[in-house]
């Protein structure tokens, strides 16, 4: 579970899930509820809410986990419509596409990326200052993972 807590910490979020209900299945983490816990056999392929997977010391979060973290206190940016579209196509985010910043503005920190409706589209790494003085055409958040991944996985 350390991998999950560490990941949440990088996003300025608190990891508050009940670890009793988290099942690690060969590096893939699932959050089950009490009802599912009672009936799920050990040989399940997928169960409850998929949280992400750990591989070679790195943690790859699921979009469900990102969405959960986005509901609470965390580093978040809200981006305008065209930027949101480009982000889910795998592109980085320019300063000019950011409508609001919540939490950290520090270079090197991770931040969740939300669209104008508050949907979490993925997350990225802050690569330059968010200050007013920053060039608006500069890449501000580098894309690490976005929901467009669902399409890329099946390609």
């Amino acid at each position, binding site marked *: 579970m350390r991998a999950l807590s560490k990941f949440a910490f990088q996003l300025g979020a608190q990891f508050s899930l009940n670890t009793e209900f988290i099942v690690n299945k060969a590096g893939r983490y699932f959050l089950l509820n009490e009802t599912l816990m009672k009936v799920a056999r050990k040989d399940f392929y997928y169960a409850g809410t998929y949280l992400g997977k750990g591989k070679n010391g790195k943690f790859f979060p699921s*979009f469900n986990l990102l969405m959960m973290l986005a509901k609470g206190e965390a580093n978040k940016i809200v981006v305008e419509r065209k930027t949101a579209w480009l982000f889910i196509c795998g592109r980085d985010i320019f300063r000019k596409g950011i409508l609001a910043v919540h939490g950290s503005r520090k270079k090197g920190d991770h931040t969740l990326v939300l669209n104008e409706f508050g949907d979490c589209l993925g997350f990225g790494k802050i690569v330059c200052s968010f200050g007013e003085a920053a060039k608006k055409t500069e890449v501000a958040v580098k894309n690490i993972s976005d929901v467009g991944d669902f399409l890329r996985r099946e390609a």
Partner: protein
Amino acid sequence: MSGKEFFVGRYERLGWKFEDAKPRQAIRLNVTNIKRKNLEERLEAIGVQLEKIPFLEMGYWVRRSEVSVGATAEYLLGSYSIQEAAAQIPATLFANLKGRTVLDACAAPGGKTVQLADLMGNTGILVALDVNKRRLAALSNHLERCHVSNAIVYHFDARQVSQLKLKFNRILLDAPCSGNFAADNDWFKRRTITDIKRNAKLQREILVQAAACLSDDGEIVYSTCSLEPEENEVNMDWAVRHLNLQIEEVDCYGQKGLTEVFGSRLDVSVKRCRRIWPSETQGFFMCKFKKRGKKR
């Protein structure tokens, strides 16, 4: 015994005059994830024109779209699924799914599994099985994309469901079938009567196991996208005669099930099934069972 002429001849003997069909693209609102009005507005804003499907509460035809409906943010966020209209019907035939223990016996790629989870409001237990491990990856993606949280997926042949030692209140048996020409351009070239008989046998084997793990007040919905009566009405007739099941009336789109097939008379209750010949939708067949003697 194969080829277009052979199968078209069979359909005519069953009372349907063959016509080429191109099913319309359809989507289904995942109401657990978004409000109807919000989805309609958001899709309209990006150039997707929808038309409500009259026989489906959550279904829409895609009338026109400036973007691929399989690549919008709303799709990727699980607000809707792309699901053929006729295929949206079976899951809606169950009475009250919330809080129940539900089995999706042949689940991959997961369109109906997600629909069941949506109808269950992510409550209860949804067990999804599929025998093909590669297809489980697609199923898992679908569950993650649509934020399903009440499912347990097993790599399992539905004929081994008794190993789970669970009784199910609702069982969706969307059986492996021969498919139909409206969903597969090469269907007539590919299929023979031998395929159909083999599938019909497999379907019976799964039905036997499904019936064995149905709770006393349970319901089974059996469906296929096959037009062949051996996989549909004839199998339902067999189930009524050999399993402790009775066919229930359903109120949904489609024609009554056939009770006379190539000269054989079937149980009169088979007419309660629904058969859809291809037109705006693909071909489809549905039947709802309860245990014999159990009235709601």
